């Protein structure tokens, strides 16, 4: 009773501070997050629905959508397999240099996107290490689809591994060991024990990986060469239309990417609410803690 009375006595000035802080935070969130998002859709529909739809069904836009999907369909599964393999090795076995391996997996996150594209130009470009050899054999990587895929793979490499490593570390290997002792084959163990245990975290990682793969701009812009209809992904198409002052066209394609972002956020939030304990509060949490060093 006494304590209750005390809380109420100090409640009103504190309440005022709470409201002020909430208001301040909301002003910032609206200004920095809601307004840019709203801008995309308002600008896209600036001239009405018809010009919007017309801008999307243009052949360049459609081929950009196809290319974006193609790049993601190749890059994401490759990084998924890598993520599972890396997480398995790092969380189930002891070996030297594990911390270093963890640091290298995270490396693409601290490399500028432009540099991520640049490195492949230096390898496979006309003046690059393998440039002359590729040229002789008529293989095009830079200014072609393989370059886009490689640059995207580089940028999105850490996502799946980063989700799985802390989770599998926390889960431990007892269930898998039990399965083995009871006579399960390696693949039986993987598909019946490991995979069901990590499925939501895996989906979560794939979701983030895919969002970045479809939205990557800097790295692909360096290796693309901006050949309309051939090497322009959706973000590059947005850039080209914007620079040509085709604002409705640019924001129309941008609105599709924004929808993808919203869908990603929705599924991500849903996964966090429903399977929160099976997803280590992923986020860009301190990597040093996550790799257990």
């Amino acid at each position, binding site marked *: 009773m006494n304590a209750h009375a005390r809380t109420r006595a100090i409640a009103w000035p504190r309440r005022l501070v709470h409201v002020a802080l909430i208001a301040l935070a909301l002003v910032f969130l609206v200004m920095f997050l809601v307004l840019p998002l709203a801008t995309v859709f308002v600008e896209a529909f600036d001239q009405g629905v018809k010009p919007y739809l017309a801008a999307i069904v243009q052949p360049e836009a459609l081929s950009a959508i196809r290319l974006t999907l193609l790049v993601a369909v190749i890059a994401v599964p490759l990084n998924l397999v890598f993520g599972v393999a890396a997480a398995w090795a790092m969380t189930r076995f002891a070996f030297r240099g594990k911390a270093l391996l963890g640091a290298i997996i995270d490396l693409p996150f601290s490399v500028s996107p432009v540099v991520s594209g640049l490195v492949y130009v230096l390898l496979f470009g006309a003046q690059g290490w393998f440039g002359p050899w590729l040229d002789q054999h008529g293989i095009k990587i830079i200014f072609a689809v393989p370059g886009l895929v490689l640059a995207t793979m580089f940028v999105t490499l850490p996502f799946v591994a980063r989700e799985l490593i802390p989770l599998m570390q926390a889960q431990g290997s007892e269930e898998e060991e039990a399965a083995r002792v009871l006579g399960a084959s390696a693949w039986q163990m993987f598909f019946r024990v490991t995979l069901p245990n990590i499925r939501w975290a895996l989906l979560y990682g794939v979701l983030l990986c895919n969002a970045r793969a479809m*939205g*990557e701009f800097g790295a692909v812009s360096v290796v693309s060469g901006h050949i309309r209809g051939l090497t322009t992904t959706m973000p590059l198409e947005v850039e080209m239309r914007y620079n040509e002052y085709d604002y409705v066209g640019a924001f129309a394609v941008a609105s599709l990417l924004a929808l993808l972002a919203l869908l990603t956020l929705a599924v991500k939030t849903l996964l966090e609410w429903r399977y929160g304990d099976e997803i280590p509060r992923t986020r860009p949490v301190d990597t040093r803690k996550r790799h257990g060093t």
Partner: protein
Amino acid sequence: MRRRVLPGFGISLGYALTYLGLIVLLPLAALAWKATDIGFEGLVRLLSAPRTLAALRLSVGGALVSALINVVIGLLVSWVLVRYRFPGRRLFDALVDLPFALPTAVAGIALTTLYAPKGWLGRWLEPLGIHVAYTPLGVLVAMIFVGFPFVVRTLQPVLASLERDVEEAAESLGAQRWQTFFRVILPLLAPTLLTGFALALARAVGEYGSVIFIAGNMPRKSEIAPLLIVQKLEQFNYAGAAALGVALLSLSFVLLVLVAVLQRWSNRWTEQAA
């Protein structure tokens, strides 16, 4: 013991290492190798050029300032999201990750439209003499946008697990609320704030897509280092582009190491105090 029971050590580690080697290490080796092509003199000439210096200063300086601003705003937002209940809280919480999910090019053109003289925000700021679009201030705004989720997402779990008894102890000893915050809570959060700072910084230093639209890209004024790399590449100056890339990477690693040192120091300080 474990090694004998669980299968797949060789194949999983071998695959991971091969993949990393081909996708990450070999390309980065090519970068370092190509950068040596311009030689020591060329490097000095490149790095002492006023245009290069200005671009590096903008990328690194802007990233530092934006990360600092994000620490303040991130602290406020995560505090509000963790401690208070209000309508729409979960929606805003989910929205915090928007800068991760929204492609940078989309963010770039949206921010530019927003802050252009006729934009929703620009039209209020221009009469006050605040020019955001096509100035270094615009670069800063874009960097704050992309770095924003890092501080909030690092801070949230720590704030949520912060024991209230420390605060209650401080208050029962007669501390004012603001004293409790600045002298008890803030020191406890310092290492986490530094982590968030480092993540936001690392992201902003190399940021390209969201910045180039709003920056206006005027040489020596609002031109960022990654754009300079792209320009060198377009002029087929591969060695120059590589050298600049190495310079940018080295700068951000030096900064991150400094933050790590600071963090270790603040950790020790917190532990001693506790």
